């Protein structure tokens, strides 16, 4: 059974590419447009990995990350944060709140695929 990935970002133009890319790589992909929706999908679908954008409406990526890490039942969920800010303080905050890795926008999709694969143990 293929690994499940949630793409949480409010920019439809990046979501469409990420969804297409990850599906091609053989993952099962879910999409959320804001922080609250992301948390709902995580609770319902229990994805193996979340691609989490920091700046999202309703709840930010930081808040979602914190909520996931606070939930005992979701310890296995990997979190890869995507940030457009590119400030080291944001990276420090994301890491402190429990993100497994981060990428600064813009990024190469090849690199993204590699990071995702590494976080999920090498197999889709």
């Amino acid at each position, binding site marked *: 059974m293929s690994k499940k990935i949630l793409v949480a970002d409010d*920019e439809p*133009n*990046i979501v*469409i*590419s*990420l969804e*297409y*890319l990850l599906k*091609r790589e053989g993952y099962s992909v879910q999409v959320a447009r804001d922080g609250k929706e992301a948390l709902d999908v995580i609770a319902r679908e229990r994805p193996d990995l979340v691609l989490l954008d920091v*700046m999202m409406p309703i709840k930010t990526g930081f808040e979602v990350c914190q909520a996931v890490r606070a939930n005992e039942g979701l310890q296995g969920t990997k979190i890869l944060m*995507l940030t*457009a*800010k*590119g400030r080291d303080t944001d990276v420090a905050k994301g890491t402190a709140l429990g993100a497994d890795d981060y990428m*600064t*926008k*813009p*990024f*190469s*999709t*090849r690199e993204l695929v590699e990071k995702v694969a590494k976080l999920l143990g090498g197999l889709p």
Partner: protein
Amino acid sequence: MRLDRRLLLVMAAAGLVMAGWLGATLALLWFTLEPDQRELAGKLLGPRLALLGMSWAVAFALAAAGLRALWRTYVNRPARLLEETRVLLAATGAQQLNARGSREMRALGEAINALAAQRDLLREDMARQVTQASQRVQQEKNRLSALMAELTQSVVVCNLDGRILLYNNRARLQLREFSQMPELVAGAELIGIGRSIYAVFDRQMVAHALENIHQRMVRGAASPSTQFVTTTPSGQLLRVQMAPVRPGKTDADDIDAFSGFVLMLDNVTRNFEQESLRDRLLYGLTEGSRSSLASMQAALDMLGYADIEPEMRERFMRVLREELTAMSGRITDLVQHSTQGLKTRWPLEEMLGSDLVTAARRQIEVYCARSVTVDSVDESLWLKVESFSLLQALTYLSSRLVDEFEVKFMRLRLQAAGPRAQLDLIWTGHAMSTETVMTWEMDPMRFGAESLPLTVRDVVERHGGEMWFERERVRHEAFFRFLLPLATAQERLEATELSQSDSRPEYYDFDLFQTSTQGSELDDQLLSELSYTVFDTETTGLNPSDGDEIIQIGAARIVNGKLLRQETFEQLVDPQRLIPTASSEIHGITQAMVVGKPAIGAVLPALHAFARDTVLVAHNAAFDMKFLQLKEASTGVAFHQPVLDTLLLSAVVHPNQESHQLETLAEGFNITLQGRHTAMGDAIVTAEVWLRLIPLLAAMGIRTLRQARQAAQETYYARLKY
């Protein structure tokens, strides 16, 4: 002439000595004689003893006369000289004493005269120095108040109790933002000499800042100031800088003591807004662009797959197009805002447009020796400009027109153009090519041999404006048009008020540094030290209980024995009833004048705030107070301050006068009447009368508020009730 007892004693002693000398001589002769000779001498002298006595008497008389003459010269004359010297000692003006008698006496007299002259000289010199010094002090005070008035920064000086000792007009305008009733009192109830700064700023906040300063002083900081940012009720941001006022003397023990503090206020709302705008632009540039780039990069990567479905290819192409449009939109935005938000780094000042045009006309006429006329000027326009460089640019362009195209006449025109103003420099005749204009714009400005590092373009850009050249072929005219920024409404208001008011003295009272009212009851304070609100009302009639209403209130403040003519309260009130013609004839207020004015319910809270912490004073106060008291229930405003009545207190001072009317009192005190029967005019006269009554009451032993109130109660007039 009376003889001195001491002289009589000396004379008696001389008589005794002479008698003794005579007796001793006779006795000596007696012992040298033989017995028969003694018998013979006895027989000879016995009958002539009387002659001997007479001889003594004559000799005594001669000696006494001599003694008396000597006494007069050596005792009486010095005594007289002593008396005259004492007079001289007490004399305030120049005087000379006239010494007679012996040479030594005359010399002594002259020496005393010389000493006195020297003293007079020193005294005059001292008086001159004192006058000069006090003139200098006065000059310095005037200079200080002039300086304060012209400062572009708001300054308030307070003593440690938080009482305001000094403020400038700009501070008043800025703190008006804190007023709950800006249209009625315009902040006069908040900022004024002797008022508490805690009415404006939170006491805790000021205490915290003072504590900060204290700690810095203890640590030995050279300039121990601190600052805080606070918001006004209307949401403006005010940055407050606080510095201590230290006593002049540098006493080692007093190193951390200070007698008050200076507050410098800065409205940073606009800076803050500009910074937020800058932040937003920056965000658009960084995060926004990063997001767009990320979307584009990902879409591009997907397009790289050879086996991509056609509809997905089209979808990714659309992503690229959308994000490209978003990026260029962001850049357009940035360019547009940056001219306003990022580039205007020159300190631009608010200036009345017509003033700028007048100055430009004068400068061009002087420099180019050509006549310049002013075409049409919108008098209401307030510009935000750096006038010096702008005038240079106009003069430079004019000089090139004159030098290179022999233009004889020029005109200036200023009009509004949307959110900006357009200033035109117009001439008739020659029109040059666009290339020429371009050169003029980009060349460093030259004035004779002097070349500036600035170009006309620089000047225009630093104003966030624009400039171009246009032709009007029909009228055979051409002009340079400058687009210039306008001042915002708030800046305009402040600039107008600053230019209109003759902001001078009365804005300071450093004597309040010494005053501390903490803990002392008003009743036991000296009349000369209390703060007063002297007020008067004009009404529709004399019977408040029968529906007569207030139509005007005027009030002035007395602080520290000085009438503050610039801190006044004047307001027309809509009585919401007809004003009888008979009363209009007295006060001159007609129905038309009160239309649209606030009702008493809105005005009394403002008056109440204006009169906070003061004693109320009015002439025939019972009348005015009755009007105020009747409104207590409907307005919820009660005046619990102590009240003094100049009519009653005049009766205390002059119990035998028949009239205690305000006019009579003013005349008696030689006070010039201004605007009699206007509330403000009468309030000012009442205040002047009260200031003159205070010392007269003090002379009768009535010094405190309690004593004055008791004395007033006991007078006959106190029994009159309205």
